[in-house]
């Protein structure tokens, strides 16, 4: 009775949430979020394949050209950001704080460069979403992905700031791991978007 009273006295805040899964709540949340994201991208790809395969429309639209080489360099930049992120995470697990900070900062800057180049591409591409169905799909898919890069940058920015403020350690790095999974997912989606929109 006395022990229960002491335990009750030590507990602060609301009661702990019920946990029905063996997967950690943070990982489960990201897993469900990414599954929903795949469905959103799937809807956009359905529209893309509809106009290319079912309607057999010319791709890209007549009189337009997609900057395959510049987007290819942008792809390399985004893939590099995943490598530096993995490096940062590995450095943190080895308690190499300088490597962790450098890796996070580099990842953030590479992501920012990707977004900047994509906006620059929009400015110079020469067509707009309302010009034709191909334009709508192009801006829809690449814009949807760009929005994901923007959200990823916000998350990476927070991790980078926290890294420079001394947060995280080799034992406690869940706050780096979850945004990291999201960022790799964003890169996976870009590989699919780039190969279908620009190359195939």
């Amino acid at each position, binding site marked *: 009775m006395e022990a229960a009273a002491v335990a009750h006295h030590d507990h602060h805040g609301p009661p702990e949430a019920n946990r029905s899964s063996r997967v950690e709540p943070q990982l489960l949340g990201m897993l469900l979020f990414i599954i929903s994201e795949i469905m959103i991208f799937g809807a956009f790809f359905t529209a893309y394949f509809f106009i290319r395969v079912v309607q057999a429309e010319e791709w890209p639209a007549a009189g337009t050209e997609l900057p395959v080489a510049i987007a290819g360099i942008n792809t390399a930049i985004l*893939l590099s950001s995943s490598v530096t992120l993995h490096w940062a995470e590995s450095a943190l697990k080895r308690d190499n704080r300088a490597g962790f900070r450098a890796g996070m900062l580099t990842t953030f800057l590479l992501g920012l460069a990707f977004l900047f180049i994509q906006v620059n591409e929009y400015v110079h591409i020469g067509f707009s979403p309302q010009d034709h169905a191909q334009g709508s799909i192009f801006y829809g898919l690449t814009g949807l992905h760009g929005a994901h890069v923007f959200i990823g940058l916000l998350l990476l920015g927070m991790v980078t700031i926290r890294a420079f403020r001394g947060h995280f350690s080799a034992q406690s790095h869940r706050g780096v791991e979850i945004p990291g999974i999201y960022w*790799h997912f964003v890169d996976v989606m870009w*590989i699919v978007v780039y*190969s279908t929109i620009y190359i195939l």
Partner: protein
Amino acid sequence: MINPLRSEGEAFRFLLYVVAVVATVTVVVVLARAIL
């Protein structure tokens, strides 16, 4: 297949796997278009 979202390391390995598969498919399709 191991859940690619289990950790950052698994997600990174999954990314490399996707890059390899998509690159292979893309090369095959581009070559097929050139030949046929």
